[in-house]
């Protein structure tokens, strides 16, 4: 088994080769991805920490069993994310729900996402608005949400998203554009609704009893 320092210098693909020779090296691969993947699972679905840990174990075991099917033409991370995506979907199919919640640490990422879209005025948005966007994201179509999470929260490029979701790159680009448009519309709708709901001051009811 290699040391931790040695493992840090190795690429994922090299670690895969070493894992096939000695199973203990798989520890470094799993260790490298467990935080990233647990965040991704939480972004995809609102599972408890215990559930996330169970799903993670299933993912890593599945990845280990299928390690020989890893295609070196793909990035290892894309391959692992694809397994994660499928396993998470399988889990919430069993649970029959898929409410998503983004953690408060995602607020900064949401603001970055808005800033990346030239059609949305950056200065209009503050940290507080990120919470409103979080709510809006939960209303989006599943396909739109998946590409937004991968692009802006997981920082994946089009090729990687295409490999993870098994969709052509052109489709990914189209989905992303539609997702942004849909998100913008939802935000505008929410803003209009908020303006409509003017809170009138509450007047004390006149007591009938004297």
């Amino acid at each position, binding site marked *: 088994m290699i040391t931790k320092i040695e493992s840090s210098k190795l690429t994922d693909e090299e670690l895969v080769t070493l894992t096939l020779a000695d*199973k203990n090296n798989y*520890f470094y691969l799993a260790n490298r991805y467990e935080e990233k993947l647990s965040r991704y699972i939480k972004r995809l679905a609102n599972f408890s920490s215990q559930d996330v840990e169970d799903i993670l174990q299933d993912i890593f*075991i599945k990845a280990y*069993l299928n390690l020989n*099917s890893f*295609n070196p033409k793909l990035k290892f991370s894309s391959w692992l994310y694809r397994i994660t995506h499928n396993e998470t979907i399988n889990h919430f199919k069993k649970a029959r729900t898929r409410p998503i919640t983004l953690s408060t640490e995602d607020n900064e990422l949401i603001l970055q996402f808005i800033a990346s879209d030239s059609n949305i005025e950056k200065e209009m948005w503050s940290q507080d608005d990120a919470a409103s966007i979080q709510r809006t994201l939960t209303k989006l179509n599943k396909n739109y949400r998946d590409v937004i999470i991968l692009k802006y929260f997981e920082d994946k490029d089009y090729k990687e998203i295409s490999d993870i979701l098994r969709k*052509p790159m052109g489709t990914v680009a189209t989905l992303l554009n539609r997702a942004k448009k849909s998100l913008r519309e939802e935000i505008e709708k929410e803003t209009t609704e908020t303006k409509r709901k003017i809170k009138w001051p509450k007047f004390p009811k006149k007591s009938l009893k004297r």
Partner: protein
Amino acid sequence: MAQVSQKIIEEISDKQLKPKPRSYFLVYNAVIWLLIAFFIIFDGILLCVNIYGLAALDWSLSQSFNERLATFTTNNLPLLWLSLSFVAISFAYILFRLTDMGYKYRRRWTVLIVLFVALFATVLLYFTGTSRMILNLID
């Protein structure tokens, strides 16, 4: 959470898990490609049957029945063979989508690629006389 990787290694050791051999995936991929080839050739043969059927039609009958050529052709199309041909091409399409490269192309392009290959196979089978030979064998 930091213990997940340790737990995995322990589980792998306890259950003595091993990665599936590379040959398993090679055979799996080969089977998929063989099935695609089978369905495309099968589709080619079915389309050849349609062509033979249409070629054997006595077209002068359309004038006798006072039918339009299009109506006459539609009425005499071997619909069962055409339906089977559609099923075969659909299977080829679905299997192609399962391959490593199947998701890289847009659906319309995938359909066009599969149709083009199937038509190419049909033409090849028809003009080399292979389909006639196969049909004679079936008869």
